[in-house]
């Protein structure tokens, strides 16, 4: 795409998203938030940031869940605004972002249905970006082929579902496999879509998505130890658009314990650093946090380029991280458990 004509369609939205990005909390804000004694203090401080009066109509005492909901509502409103003003190909790009949430929602609902939870109780837990018309009727399905034929065939996820149609009944493991297969197909499709857009978008997004794919591969492997998932089946779940593909993934497929995974990561400079600093002891950061930090770094870097769609994705992810941070701090304050309050992931 020619950079010079980018602004015709997307200039306004890019400007908007960069403005939104400037409202992301800074280190000083976090330092202030960490000092809060109660959730009302937190609210007072958030009022002085870009969040403004988003909690003004909530009666005290505040609940962490209320804060969480409001944070998410605000982000969703912003994203919907961007989506409503977007034209092709940005519109498709933004839709692609929502598919990930759809997968999560479907899995959440099916799991809930398995545990005999009413759907009305589960719906509020679904991410609003990932809803679609038929979502609430999802518990009609008892096998994955039914799921496909009855519910998903009309949704954008139908394309990703091809590999996991089977007549087996849905159970815990099955659902996990469906989630990961869907996610794999989704990531690969998103990756190739970004590639096809070309230009800076491809450069920035492929970098981020490749990391996302590799992270999934690592986490699938680590979580599979001690379950009945065979190495063969596991291999099928690895998204093949990351930097680990193909050698790293092959090695991961052979891995039998966490040490093996670490050895695989040794071959990749950026992942080696992540694995080296990670640990579960107090004072050390968990691997998950390390991954999050790396993701934040990639997303912040996306803002260093201009005229590309990556900023929209990066903004959403950064903001999600920020919501997680605020909720973490709020939880720590609410539970009077201040020892770990500093374990948020700063967005620089």
């Amino acid at each position, binding site marked *: 795409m020619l950079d010079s004509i980018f602004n015709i369609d997307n200039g306004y939205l890019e400007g908007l998203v960069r403005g939104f990005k400037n409202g992301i909390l800074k280190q000083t804000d976090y330092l*202030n938030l960490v*000092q*809060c*004694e109660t959730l*009302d*203090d937190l609210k*007072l*401080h958030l*009022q*002085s940031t870009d969040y403004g009066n988003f909690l*003004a*109509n*909530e*009666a*005290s005492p505040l609940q962490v869940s209320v804060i969480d909901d409001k944070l998410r509502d605000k982000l969703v409103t912003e994203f919907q605004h961007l989506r409503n003003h977007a034209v092709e190909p940005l519109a498709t790009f933004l839709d692609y972002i929502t598919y990930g949430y759809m997968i999560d929602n479907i899995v959440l609902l099916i799991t809930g249905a398995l545990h005999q939870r009413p*759907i009305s109780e589960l719906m509020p837990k679904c991410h609003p970006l990932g809803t679609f*018309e*038929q*979502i*609430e*009727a*999802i*518990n*009609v399905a008892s096998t994955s082929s*039914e799921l496909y*034929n*009855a*519910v998903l*065939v*009309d949704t954008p996820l139908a394309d990703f579902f091809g590999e996991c149609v089977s007549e087996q009944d849905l159970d815990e493991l099955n659902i996990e496999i469906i989630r990961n297969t869907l996610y794999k197909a989704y990531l690969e499709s998103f990756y190739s879509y970004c590639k096809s857009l070309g230009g800076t978008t491809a450069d920035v997004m492929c970098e981020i998505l490749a990391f996302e794919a590799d992270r999934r591969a690592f986490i699938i492997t680590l979580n599979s130890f001690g379950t009945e998932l065979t190495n063969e089946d596991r291999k099928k779940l690895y998204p093949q658009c990351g930097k680990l593909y193909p050698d790293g993934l092959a090695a991961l497929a052979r891995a039998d314990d966490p040490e093996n995974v670490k050895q695989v990561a040794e071959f990749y400079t950026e992942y080696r650093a992540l694995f080296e600093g990670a640990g579960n002891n107090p004072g050390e950061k968990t691997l998950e946090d390390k991954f999050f930090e790396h993701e934040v770094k990639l997303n912040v870097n996306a803002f260093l380029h201009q005229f590309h769609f990556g900023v929209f994705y990066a903004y959403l992810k950064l903001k999600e991280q920020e919501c997680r941070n605020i909720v973490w701090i709020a939880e720590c304050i609410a539970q009077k458990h201040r020892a770990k309050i500093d374990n948020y992931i700063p967005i620089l």
Partner: protein
Amino acid sequence: MGSLFRSEEMALCQLFLQSESAYTCVSELGELGLVQFRDLNPDVNAFQRKFVNEVRRCDEMERKLRYLEREIRKDGIPVLDTGENPEAPMPREMIDLEATFEKLENELKEVNSNAEALKRNYLELTELKHILKKTQAFFDEREGSLEAGGQTSLTQNLLPEDSKGPIQLGFVAGVILRERIPAFERMLWRACRGNVFLRQAIIEDPLEDPVTGEQVYKSVFIIFFQGDQLKMRVKKICEGFRATMYPCPEAPADRREMAMGVKTRLDDLNTVLSQTQDHRHRVLVSAARNIRAWMMKVWKIKSIYYTLNMFNLDVIQNGLIAECWIPVANLEDVQLALRRGTEKSGSLPAILNRLNTVEAPPTFHRTNKFTKAFQALIDSYGVATYREINPAPYTIITFPFLFAVMFGDLGHGIIMALFGAWMVWREKPLSAKKTDNEIWNIFFGGRYIILLMGLFSMYTGFIYNDVFSKALNIFGSAWHVRSYNESTIMSNKELTLNPGDVQQYDQYPYPFGLDPMWQISSNKINYYNSYKMKISIIFGIIHMLFGVILSVWNYKFFNKQISIYCEFIPQILFLSCLFVYLVLLVFHKWVWYGAGGDVSVSPSCAPSILITFINMVLMKGYENRPDDDCSPYMYAGQFGFQRFLVVVAVICVPWMLFAKPFLIHRNNKRKQMMVQANGGEGVVEEGGETSTVPHEEHDMSEIMIHQGIHTIEYVLGSVSHTASYLRLWALSLAHAQLSEVLWSMVLSIGLTSGSDGGGGGVVMYFIFAAWASLTIAILVLMEGLSAFLHTLRLHWVEFQSKFYSGSGYAFVPFAFETILDQAENAIVET
């Protein structure tokens, strides 16, 4: 009295407030609105300040009031705005207020939840009623088809061919949102593999959603199926699409009975509902009467505590210490307000101390409704540095004048002046009508500017003798065609009039403005251009010269003698030697050359001023050709005098560039020598010297660069700024031409059409509408805007760059008035 010449003198004061009286004192100061408090604890978080709990309580009250207001607005009850301004209540009244709001909120919440439950009930019953009514048709159809035994009905196909008698089909009836029907139907088909039969009917009237209160459109559906498994499935899908299902008895008699029951229950519910609504209405109406005053009270309390949070705590004396900027002229008022505040709370008096400070005080211009708009024009460029010359008073005249030079048309001026006058005349009612229409607010805010611009445009319109591109012949033109006989006049398209001829020109000019004859002459453009070009330059140079002269008052006031000698004098010399001389040449040419005199001063001999000026700067002389009667010089000794002026101007440049840095350097050196001479010798001295010298060097280079930029800016600026004033001519020309085009291309068509007697009036009716709207839209609005912007630029850049630095910050006093305005606007926006 406040004067606009310089900003008000400000004093930094320290306030010692007793903790009992602090609240009332700040409240009084807020009503007064003349004090700007400084935040004395900027490092402290918002939630660690002293009165954070009070602020939070106010937030809570505000939330409750907002909730009340939303409910009031939902019911469309008018909120009474009496315009009264309640005083900030005492802190102890806060508890009462809180209790009142709490009670109201709870009452309202209870009413609402009751109403919601009732409404849900009502909705369900209405839906059931619709189902019973609509499904009747479906059942009739089925039975009809069964009785007929024909193959016409679709339901028939669902039944197995070999069945004996009708198989009992199960069915589910319910109500669903209309927009979800397509997806619902598709899903049913897919999930049940086409083994169900769906009928639907639209409910025409919108139903009210009990939670949001919105009107939604719904449809009745009924699904026929066979077997329990399908039933489960259908029910699940119905739940998934948020369809509400209702039991619907199979037998027609039961249905009828049920419909009757539903109807009576609906009637009962209706009465209960209306009673609940009445109660709610009563509560809200009584709240609506007070809500404005409550809001104001809460805002005031909140702003007071917010201000108190900026104060320092005096631990020893159990008081609060505040620092604030106060206009010196108002110190007395502030003292009085403080006394009132302490009297109210009955504690020890507050103490006001004036502090000495090196900090730059805020800039405060006391404006009235007339000067406010002009001050705003200046402030939007940059708020004046504390106590520097304020260009606003001069702008009051120069701004409309320069605008009018560009906009010179009597007709358009009258329109603009009338509009401005109307806004001024209807000032009170118009300003009371608060609106968030930005364009209107801009126009209304600048009503006095618009009025003045209109009046000045009328004046220049007279001078240009231009009314909608036509001329007014009030005093009788000085040009005549008496000397030509009638046939000459009739047969010639153009006639040349000789100003030297007494028969053709009266030898004295038209008494006021330009002669109307020029409007119809064919060399009108040449004449106007020459005239307007010259007056633009003249006005421009006078304007700039005035700006440079104003800088003297700044230098004098800030005690910068050195700048007068090293900047002001060379600047004014430079400007005078080149550009003021140019203006003098213009006048000389106007006075000296003309028709009817000696040959050497005849129009054909008049030298071009532009060429003369260029040659002057290039120091080029002319050869006096003997065969020519005309002299290339306008007066004797012109060449030598011009050469002298250019030399002076050139000398001014290094004067501006080097004199000031040199003098500063010398002064510094002298000071250093003094220090060295007076101070003893030793380690300290050496150490001091080594540290000061590089610092000195750095300072000098900075001064040098600064001076260089300043000089280049001025020298180049005086050339480019002079040229920039030519926009006066350019815009004026464009305006006159555009209005002439509009006349000749639009209105004159209407005036000439129908000269043969048919329908001219009708054509004119439409043509005039077109002409009038184009005149307003293009000539008055668009051209007015463009002329306005160019005038603004001439003031900001060409005029103010000569003396105005505009690097101050505005005085923002703590005033309830502005705080309430802002809060109210925020409410209007949401």
